[in-house]
């Protein structure tokens, strides 16, 4: 069998900082191997040279548009080692930031999805609506993307006045927009034709490959760490886990869409229920974690994100192992791309929400 091998990436409109080596038989993909590493920056090694506070801005770089969620796992790990109990208001603010970030990241996903199926309007709309939530997050933290807002022992500062109104306004507006998104994108017959039945990952395969996040939930596994292993105050909040049984690219887009709705519900509740009080513990001086090890994980926007932290009691971590959801979803890329047409590569691959910076670390 004669095949044509092409490399999609790293300079390719459909790949980003990443390469897929594709072997084509006619127009059909017989083999697709991911070739990551174009953004590998050695985060794990660098963390050994930085102390626990210096690591905070450093660890949000792999997922800049989901920075609160990755820091959530990191600070949980440090707090677990140090046996810290975060004040309740701090936990609520953390949840608000995490959910804002989830919406921001999901909107980025929708935007890129749009451009990958050739729908330029769907690139621009989410990019514009993202700014609303970035505005809210910016009000709270003072930054656009890299908030560095979560610290061991709480959050950096309390919320200013007017966040609640602003956030609710954004949510009100965005709920209306989501209906429009459904009309123009998710339920667009052409989009359904392109993505229904594409890149199917069955429930068994999803479990076997250990994929995480919306990809997993689109395959019919109702697993979400916010419910399964409630951290912070997620057990006090009422929300739903959208699950689809289809396991295809369309289902993944749909799950992202529904999760944004749930995130908005969480934000509303958290802002309503938020108690008053301090937002952080008053930790003085250098933070030193006692020696030991811990494995902390949170549900980031792309799925379960875990930190394995080994400390020897020094100022700096002895070893940090960061496993990101994209890295775990990478294993599904050759699996779902095999047998598809070349034209299905961008939508099927982006359906996984694979973000190379996050996977390479």
């Amino acid at each position, binding site marked *: 069998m004669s095949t044509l091998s092409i490399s999609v990436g790293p300079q390719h409109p459909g790949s980003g900082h990443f390469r897929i080596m594709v072997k084509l038989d006619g127009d059909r993909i017989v083999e697709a191997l991911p070739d990551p590493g174009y953004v590998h*920056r050695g985060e794990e090694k660098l963390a050994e040279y930085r102390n626990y506070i210096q690591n905070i801005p450093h660890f949000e770089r792999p997922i800049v548009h989901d920075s609160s969620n990755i820091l959530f796992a990191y600070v949980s790990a440090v707090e677990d080692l140090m046996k810290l109990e975060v004040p309740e208001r701090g936990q609520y603010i953390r949840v608000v930031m995490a959910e804002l970030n989830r919406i921001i990241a999901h909107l980025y996903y929708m935007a890129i999805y749009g451009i990958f199926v050739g729908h330029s309007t769907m690139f621009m*709309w989410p990019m514009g609506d993202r700014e609303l939530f970035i505005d809210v997050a910016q009000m709270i933290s003072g930054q656009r993307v890299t908030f560095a807002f979560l610290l061991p022992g709480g959050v950096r500062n309390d919320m200013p006045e007017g966040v609640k109104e602003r956030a609710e306004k954004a949510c009100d507006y965005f709920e209306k927009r989501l209906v429009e998104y459904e009309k123009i994108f998710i339920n667009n017959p052409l989009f359904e034709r392109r993505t229904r039945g594409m890149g199917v990952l069955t429930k068994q395969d999803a479990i076997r490959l250990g994929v995480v996040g919306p990809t997993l939930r689109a395959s019919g596994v109702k697993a979400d760490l916010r419910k399964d292993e409630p951290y912070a105050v997620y057990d006090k909040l009422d929300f739903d886990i959208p699950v689809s049984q289809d396991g295809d690219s369309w289902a993944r887009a749909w799950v992202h869409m529904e999760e944004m709705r749930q995130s908005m519900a969480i934000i509303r509740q958290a802002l309503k229920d938020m108690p008053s009080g301090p937002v952080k513990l008053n930790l003085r001086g250098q933070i030193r974690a006692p020696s030991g090890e811990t494995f902390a994980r949170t549900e980031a926007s792309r799925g379960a994100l875990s930190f394995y932290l080994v400390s020897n009691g020094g100022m700096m971590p002895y070893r940090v192992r960061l496993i990101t959801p994209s890295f775990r979803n990478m294993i599904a890329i050759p699996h779902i791309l095999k047998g598809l047409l070349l034209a299905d590569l961008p939508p099927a691959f982006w359906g996984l929400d694979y973000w190379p910076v996050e996977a390479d670390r």
Partner: protein
Amino acid sequence: MVNGATSNIFVGKLKDILQYSVKAPLRYVVNWGRIYSLWPVHLETACCSVEWGATSGPRFDVERWGMLAAFGSMRQCDVLIILGTVNRKMAPRVKMIYDQMPEPRYVIAFGACALSGGLYFDSYNVLPGVDTIIPVDIYISGCPPRPEEFIQGLIMLQNKIRASSVR
């Protein structure tokens, strides 16, 4: 009388007149075209591409200056935006892409990592700035830079093009 010396002066004057009447306006026109038609190469090197996405989004809309959001082929593009960290695996590719772009080409280093390595200054796999491999026209600092900073950098690049001569 027309002898060697005077004819040289005459030719020199003619050249001056030609330059005055043709070259300078032409240069202005060509540079004007280049200023408002900077198409970026779609090369994302790291996490700053998120902010680049926001920059081409509705709120900051760089298409106002004629810059397209994403363009397919590098053969038609003018500006290579280095979106963040360039590591040792990406560096040969960046160089190759730069070499393949047709003249005139401009490079914008976007983000602290592209300037100097940024947060990853001591990493084993990150270049200390992209200007170690390709010449850079405009440096935009920030980690990641805000879209406004990118627009400022874009206007700086436009000013640079405006003042440059046409080959």
